[in-house]
């Protein structure tokens, strides 16, 4: 069936809440599903006990999820905007990520943090950030970052069933993107990358919105006979290094594309992974596409400047091939 990204997530939530009475959703304004509509209608089906409109208390929303997860429930937290995870950073980085480990495996922590993130529509400095890189450096968390409706649904379902804490990064610019979603309940496993487009000349490793920019770049470059392979890791922790390396060994050229700022980012980490696994396979230095090292500005031309696009991927591909 055809669904958009947001509705695919909504479907995943419905399916999992029907399957498992322990699953509940909590977040700000989720009963009406404001602003992105992902949780819309859930409270009609599952009632207010399982779809909790929380007060504006991010630390308590996220901290309470840990308490519930440790004692038998499966919380799915809606961060509203991933930017506000800063307001619950201790609960994520020191409590949720570490409790199982520090307690010697005595407790499980099956919870999901849904992180609507990303640039667009002049959201400005407090509603546009890519923050997934922080959590790569926090051992104890699993991280997913889907780019299509099918992956979004499949990864969210897997995340909900996973016994460990999973952060799902949902680019807010993709919510209304349509795509084919299997009729049957289909899970997408963590740690399995997906080749969104095969190609022999260059491997472009891209996440979320940048997968689509990279596909657009690939279409343009194909007209010149340059065959770009677009690989979407889909989950960053665990990371499917084998698929990435397999592609690089065939193409010998790598571009890494992300939306967040260049410095200390996810792309820098992925570049290291490629270096470590494929140094001798590289015929040229890796090229990276990422945002500039600035907060996200408001004004459309400035925001556009801060937004990596297909053109940037095209440029990077030309660079690694020349």
């Amino acid at each position: 069936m055809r669904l958009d990204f947001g509705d695919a997530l909504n479907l995943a939530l419905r399916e999992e809440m029907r399957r498992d009475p322990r699953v509940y959703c909590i977040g700000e304004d989720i009963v009406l599903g404001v602003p992105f509509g992902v949780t819309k209608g859930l409270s009609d089906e599952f009632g207010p006990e399982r779809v909790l409109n929380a007060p504006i208390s991010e630390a308590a929303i996220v901290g309470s999820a840990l308490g519930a997860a440790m004692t038998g429930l499966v919380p799915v937290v809606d961060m509203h905007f991933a930017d506000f995870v800063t307001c619950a950073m201790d609960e994520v980085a020191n409590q949720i990520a570490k409790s199982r480990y520090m307690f010697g495996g005595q407790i499980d922590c099956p919870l999901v943090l849904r992180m609507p993130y990303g640039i667009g529509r002049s959201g400005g400095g407090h509603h546009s950030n890519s923050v997934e890189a922080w959590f790569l450096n926090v051992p104890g968390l699993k991280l997913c970052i889907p780019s299509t409706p099918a992956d979004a649904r499949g990864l969210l379902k897997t995340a909900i069933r996973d016994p460990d804490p999973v952060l799902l990064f949902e680019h807010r610019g993709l919510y209304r993107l349509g795509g084919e979603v299997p009729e049957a309940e289909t899970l997408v496993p963590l740690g399995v990358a997906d080749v969104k487009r095969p190609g022999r000349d260059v491997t472009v490793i891209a996440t979320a919105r940048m997968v689509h920019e990279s596909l657009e770049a690939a279409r343009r470059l194909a007209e010149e006979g340059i065959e770009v392979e677009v690989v979407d890791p889909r989950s960053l922790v665990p990371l499917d290094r084998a698929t990435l390396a397999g592609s690089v060994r065939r193409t010998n050229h790598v571009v890494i594309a992300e939306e967040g700022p260049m410095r200390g980012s996810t792309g820098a980490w992925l570049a290291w992974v490629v270096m470590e696994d494929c140094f001798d396979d590289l015929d040229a230095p890796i090229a990276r596409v990422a945002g500039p090292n600035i907060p996200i500005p408001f004004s459309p031309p400035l925001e556009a400047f801060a937004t990596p696009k297909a053109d940037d991927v095209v440029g990077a591909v030309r660079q690694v091939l020349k």
Partner: protein
Amino acid sequence: MTTPGPDALLSMYAGMVRVRTFEERVRELFAAGRIPGFLHTSVGQEAIAAGTAAALRPDDYVLSTHRGHGHLVAKGGSLRGLMAELYGKANGICHGKGGTMHIADASVGYLGANGVLASGCVVAPGIGLSIKQRRSGQVVLTFFGDGAANRGPFHEGVNMAAIWALPVVFFCENNRWASTTASALSAAGGSIAARAAGYAIPGETIDGNDVLAVHAAVSRAAERARRGDGPSLIEARTIRWVGHFEGDAQAYRSKEEVAEGRRTDPIARLGRLLEARGLLDAAGAERIRTAVAAEIDDAVTHAEASPLPDPREALTDLFAYYPWRE
């Protein structure tokens, strides 16, 4: 504390009209696609913007929220600079980098709208510290909503300001809703002001649609702060006439609430008092509206005529000092 004289009353009236007209115009411009971003306006809540500004000194500081245009208009910010910023123009007060939710105008002590709720509650004590250290006799007033009052920074900021007797006024605009969520269902006890007692500071609930009540409460709190007696908490009950953000379907509340807002319109209310005192008649009110409309027309014309920033300007303003090339 001085009760406002005729001129003060008239300027508060004009102040409310200016905020209302500004916000209504901004809504039209947004609907017409002239203004980008996530827009939150304060239509209906003008008595708070005008009453607080009138009770503060020009050099006092204000920390605002995502719903902050009115606070800046009332504090005396440049309408041209503000409107151009909302348009994202190069000569906007923040060079187009801030926009509706992150505007500041340091020249009038307005140290920022904020896209993160309740942030001002913890920034304010630091401004209070600097006021105290500089012995400048200033005050800082920080706005936050009924929803924001449930965040941790409210607690930490109020407590810090209280123990150090800092010149801070914590001003809660309780418009009953945090986006789609009723304040009554999210703030335990139902009163933000009641939380002041736990910190042994004054807390009062006022009618936020009565500009005189706002002016009086803020004047008391500011005097107390200037005396060195520390912070106060004011909760002003009001009603937002419009959506939480432009485009909000408002499925969560009844038409009756908005009707109630219009019945308790703070502008009409002060207008009746001014008429009763013979300070304002229909013609006078019309003159004010016309004058304000002209100011705002000017700001819009200026904004429309102003250039968008060069994209590479995105790289400026990050650091005061950064000679390095990386």
